[in-house]
């Protein structure tokens, strides 16, 4: 089982960094068809050509192959042991050497690079109970991660949520490789809101609920456009996840994701 988990981790990373999920490709196609700004049209055409080139050549679509963020679902029959974490880390090492992935993981203070994309607490592994053993990877690049933000808003100022989301995209400008996908976590605790925001990025972007659509429209009014060079499409989608919170708190986290919204899930079979 451990060996199968290791292989599934490598396979999921390979798929994620080479092929975008179908819902993300559809969103980019819709944006390209609707775009009216000529520079933005050119940028979206480059993105479409890049997606095709990566699939054709079997190479990562972006050189920032991210840090490995991993979500496991664990069936009742499998105990949660250190071995599971080790197997996922081994899968990351193998992926780094074979795909290959750029070695991005360093010590936060010495900046020493382990050259295999593992380190203390990395891969970042999140475990939840489930029906089957599955591994989901979300390779997270730095450009968009670096402009992500969290705020503890006043519970009496719910309008502040939209303002904070739009302000986050405004401050990011072109640095986050727009058109972006925004994962928004509302509620929970300080750390919990950030966790929700990242989990929101795991959801399909084919559909948005009324709140998500409202936030997405508000962001697109900024006109930042692909790569910050202007245009109609600044965000492809906004996804929201909520959790209950303290009556005196309103935590809001925005996890910014570049257009290369990479994610892949593999069921572990053994």
């Amino acid at each position, binding site marked *: 089982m451990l060996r199968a988990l290791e292989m599934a981790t490598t396979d999921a990373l390979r798929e994620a960094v080479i092929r975008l999920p179908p819902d993300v490709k559809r969103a980019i196609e819709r944006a390209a068809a609707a775009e009216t700004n000529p*520079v933005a049209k*050119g*940028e979206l055409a*480059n*993105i479409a*050509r*890049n997606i095709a*080139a*990566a699939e054709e*050549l079997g*190479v*990562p*679509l*972006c*050189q*920032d*192959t991210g840090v490995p963020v991993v979500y496991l679902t664990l069936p009742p029959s499998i105990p949660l042991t250190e071995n599971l974490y080790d197997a996922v880390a081994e899968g990351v090492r193998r992926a780094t050497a074979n795909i*290959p*992935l*750029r*070695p*991005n993981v360093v010590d936060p203070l010495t900046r020493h*690079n382990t*050259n295999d994309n593992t380190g203390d607490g990395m891969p970042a592994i999140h475990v939840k109970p489930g029906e089957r053993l599955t591994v989901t990877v979300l390779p997270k*690049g730095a*450009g968009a991660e*670096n402009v992500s933000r969290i705020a503890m808003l006043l519970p009496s100022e719910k309008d502040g949520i*939209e*303002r904070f989301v*739009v*302000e986050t995209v*405004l401050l990011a*400008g*072109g*640095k986050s*490789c727009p058109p972006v996908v925004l994962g928004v976590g509302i509620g929970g605790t300080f750390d919990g809101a950030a966790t929700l925001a990242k989990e929101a990025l795991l959801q399909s972007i084919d559909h948005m609920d009324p709140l998500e659509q409202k936030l997405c429209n508000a962001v697109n*009014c*900024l*006109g*930042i*456009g*692909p*790569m*910050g*060079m*202007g245009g109609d499409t600044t965000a492809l989608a906004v996804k929201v996840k909520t959790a209950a919170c303290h009556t005196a708190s309103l935590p809001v986290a925005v996890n910014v994701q*570049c*257009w*290369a919204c990479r994610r892949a899930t593999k069921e572990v079979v053994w």
Partner: protein
Amino acid sequence: MTMKLRTPLGDEVLRLHAGDRVELSGTVYTARDEAHLRMKKEGVPFDPKGAAIYHCGPVVQNNRILAAGPTTSARMNKLSGFLLDLGVRALIGKGGMGRDVREQLRNRAVYLAFTGGCAALAASHMMLRGFFFKDLGMAEAVWVIELDSLPLVVGIDAQGNDIFETVRACANREFQRYRIPKG
């Protein structure tokens, strides 16, 4: 119309305008934060006159460039002046650069934007020719790359026009509607 450029670059870059599409061929040198710091301290290991610097940390395997999209240029805002003083004519990256760089480019050089994340597309226009500072690691080393018609947009021209700044100003105006009234 797309203008074709080839390195070493000269005064032809002064005639470009922000928003123009260009195709660049010839040699470019990748450099990120660490390579800039090293070159500032120990000198530039290639002829900087007419050169193009690419803000990029590629994925390289068996002397082949597999993926080489641009990195965020703003990280090099305080590290680019000395290169322009030495005769570098083009900085290539994503996201634009600061006001200081815009002034440093004036009447000398341009900032060219390549679509962020388009690493496979970039690699399909590239041949690896060599490297410097390999001890800095794959992402931070200087890679010498030959380009074949890489499609770029002029982000900041030599007259001080900055497409990123124009867009940012519009976005800031749009954001005014969220201003919280005082009092």
